[in-house]
């Protein structure tokens, strides 16, 4: 076990933590040591035990064994409330606030200000405004939280944490729903916390972010802490290697998931859109997609990428613009029309729009296919099994069998089930919205290779991603959207981070005039 070097005594010292769920070990030997005013990265693949360790720290789960020292004293936490009053606040991955209630209530719930025993709304509004103004956020604190955008909601969550005079703020994948500019704002807030002597535990899948903002890193694998080091002492490759439990050489082969691609198989234009417009979100979007090509949509959050995809798929209707599919005019009124035309759409939000967690792999996989594999309304189980087994094999879905519940699979494997569902329909064009969000590094590379393999077989792929790297390395052609307008089209060879970023930020690039 790696212990930190000598220095001031740590703020938090968790040692040899063990935790089992129904007999299955989630934490075997986990340790975490955080000093005052330190930003501490906690990383590991899905299932490594990061979330469990954090939930033990914040009192959501009880540990089975081990010791926790907080501010030098043994600390037995028994509820999230108890952790909070003792200075440990947590911001969860899916923002855990109450969208129907006002910003003020979300910040002040649990430590309301009182005046003669009754709530003092003026003082609470003032407090909420004061906390938010520390991060230069001026919003109407009386508005329901749900009306604000994701990034602002996150800032409200942080303001709430700090309002509890937190000594330690735990952020569980805070950046997964933020765009790059918002991530910048979050980082400046984190630096401010650090300057005030508040420690931060930062859980993230995005390695670049760790180097930008963290001082120290703890790596977990299979419920154990495998390494703890200062950020500058450990290279990216070493980090990934430790997470995956492989040696560096093996990871070097792994890291370039997309690699170079032979683009000779790309055919003629299959789908094209001209001047699409719908409400405020999509104002003027034009693009072409060729057979066997991966087209990437780049853009900030709110640039209209998902909204455009929904128009193409018929989930929303366009006010203006023209679309053609395989040379014929294409004007879908509902997703069923798009499916008939040979399209598939893997949505961004796996949990609420994609998988049915309580159903089995086989059921999820064949959900859209049921009419095709039924005869007179009776399911042909033989065909179902053949199809399911084929896709489990071809996509490498890791499950105990077709009858395992999807809920029990990892994020990466859930995504594969979703992909398989559409692939089983034999589509010509597949829309993938954030195909690797929330998926660990290993599974991510696998999904990316899978997408490439599908394109090689002639499938047209429209891929939306907020990760620049994924777009630049993965797409054959990149369309940059900005404020609902397709501002730039870049060929893969000509694309680099600077060009894409410039287009996202300013909407100008040498080759952009034609598109607007």
């Amino acid at each position: 076990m790696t212990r930190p070097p000598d220095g001031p005594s740590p703020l938090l010292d968790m040692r040899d933590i063990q935790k089992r769920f129904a007999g299955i070990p989630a934490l075997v030997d986990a340790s975490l040591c955080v000093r005052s005013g330190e930003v501490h990265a906690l990383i590991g693949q899905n299932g490594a035990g990061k979330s469990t360790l954090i939930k033990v720290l914040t009192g959501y789960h009880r540990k089975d064994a081990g010791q926790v020292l907080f501010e030098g004293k043994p600390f037995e936490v028994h509820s999230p409330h108890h952790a909070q009053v003792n200075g440990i606040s947590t911001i969860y991955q899916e923002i855990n606030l109450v969208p129907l209630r006002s910003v003020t209530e979300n910040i002040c719930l649990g430590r309301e200000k009182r005046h003669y025993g009754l709530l003092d709304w003026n003082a609470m509004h003032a407090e909420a405004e004061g906390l938010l103004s520390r991060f230069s956020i001026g919003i109407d604190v009386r508005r329901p939280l749900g009306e604000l955008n994701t990034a602002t909601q996150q800032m409200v969550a942080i303001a709430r944490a700090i309002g509890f005079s937190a000594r330690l703020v735990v952020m569980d994948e805070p950046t997964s729903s933020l765009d790059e500019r918002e991530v910048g704002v979050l980082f400046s807030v984190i630096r401010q916390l650090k300057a005030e002597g508040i420690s931060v535990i930062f859980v993230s899948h995005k390695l670049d972010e760790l180097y930008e903002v963290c001082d120290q890193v703890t790596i977990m694998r299979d419920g154990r802490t495998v390494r703890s080091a200062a950020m500058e002492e450990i290279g990216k490759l070493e980090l990934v290697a430790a997470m995956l439990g492989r040696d560096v050489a093996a990871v070097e082969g792994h890291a370039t998931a997309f690699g170079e691609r032979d683009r000779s198989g790309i055919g003629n234009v299959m789908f094209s859109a001209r001047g699409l417009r719908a409400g405020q979100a999509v104002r003027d979007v034009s693009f072409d997609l060729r057979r066997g090509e991966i087209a990437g949509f780049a853009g900030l959050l709110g640039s209209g990428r998902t909204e455009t995809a929904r128009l193409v798929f018929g989930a929303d209707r366009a006010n203006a613009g023209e679309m053609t599919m395989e040379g014929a005019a294409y004007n879908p009124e509902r997703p069923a029309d798009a499916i008939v035309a040979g399209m598939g759409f893997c949505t961004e939000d796996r949990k609420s729009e994609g998988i049915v967690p309580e159903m089995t792999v086989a059921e999820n996989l064949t959900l859209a296919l049921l009419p095709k594999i039924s005869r007179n309304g009776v399911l042909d189980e033989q065909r179902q099994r053949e199809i399911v087994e084929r896709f489990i094999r071809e996509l490498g879905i890791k499950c105990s069998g077709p009858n395992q519940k999807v809920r029990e699979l990892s994020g990466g494997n859930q995504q594969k089930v979703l992909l398989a569902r559409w692939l089983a329909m034999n589509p010509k064009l597949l829309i993938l919205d954030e195909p690797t969000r929330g998926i660990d590094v290993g599974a991510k590379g696998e999904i990316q290779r899978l997408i490439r393999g599908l394109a090689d077989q002639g499938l047209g792929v429209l891929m939306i991603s907020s990760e620049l790297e994924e777009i630049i390395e993965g797409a054959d052609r990149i369309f940059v959207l900005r404020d609902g307008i397709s501002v730039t089209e870049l060929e893969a060879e000509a694309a680099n981070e600077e060009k894409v970023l410039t287009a996202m930020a300013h909407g100008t690039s040498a080759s952009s005039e034609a598109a607007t």
Partner: protein
Amino acid sequence: MNRVRLVRIIGTYGVLIALAALVLFGFLRYDRFLSFYNVMTLLRYNSMFALVALGMCFVIMTGGIDLSVGSVAALGSVASALASPYGIVPGLAAGIGAGLVAGLINAILVTRANLMPFIATLATMQAASGSALLLAGNQTVSVSYESGFTAIGQGNLWTFPIPAAIAVVAYLLGSLVLNYTGTGRAVLAVGGGEDASRLMGLRTDRVKFLVYVASGGLAGLAGVILASQFGAGQPIEGVGWELFAIAAVVVGGTLLTGGSGSVVTTLAGVLLLGILFNVLNFENGMGWISLSAYWQSVIRGLFLLVVVLLQARLTQRRLGAL
């Protein structure tokens, strides 16, 4: 922004507008609609429903439901009738006490046994109904007219009906708790996101526990008023009260899924439904048409539907405008 705010106000207070319109209609159409006697009788009678709806409102705001309120009120009426010879206080204590016990059972089933509120309170509904019949020996139980117990339901405070005064005080307290105490805010937070509230450090079980106990207690109090007003504990009364209460809460703009609601508009919902009943009676009294009880039911149902649809539309537009 101003338009948004205006639409929001209409969405929240739609029930008040509907109420005002109905009152105006009644005033213009029927001579004695706003007569002192009619208004006071209306308030006296509907005070029981108002109390039940108040408890229901808090339960629904946490995202739960309490189906047992009707039979708990019946149980409360029997218990208070049996205790009525000993005076007002024992009568009140017996009725409210019976309600609190039923509420406590609901609370334990929901928060400790983790049963769905629908199932837990359905079981309590059956059990309370059976207990009321057992306790009453399968018949109505006359109250004592000597102990002063009947004043609770039939008496006046100056000229204002005592049961209506009780309801007004309960609603004032309810509004105060909801808007100006941490517990009240926690009720809405739990309904708006139970897991989130728990992670925020709120004691969600405690909040849910309290609302079911309160709902039981209020139903018991409604039972006391029932017994006192009609001179008898009535083990088979209360059928359908839970649906009346749910309807009043929903018409009052409280979200059935929890997280958003108001005490004041719930009272408006109760009055709206009560006055609608009253208006239909007046209509029959005019002699033009004669609406049977069945037709009245159909009309009330349609009216409810219109109000709820209207509110859904307004709420949608409100969200759309943002």
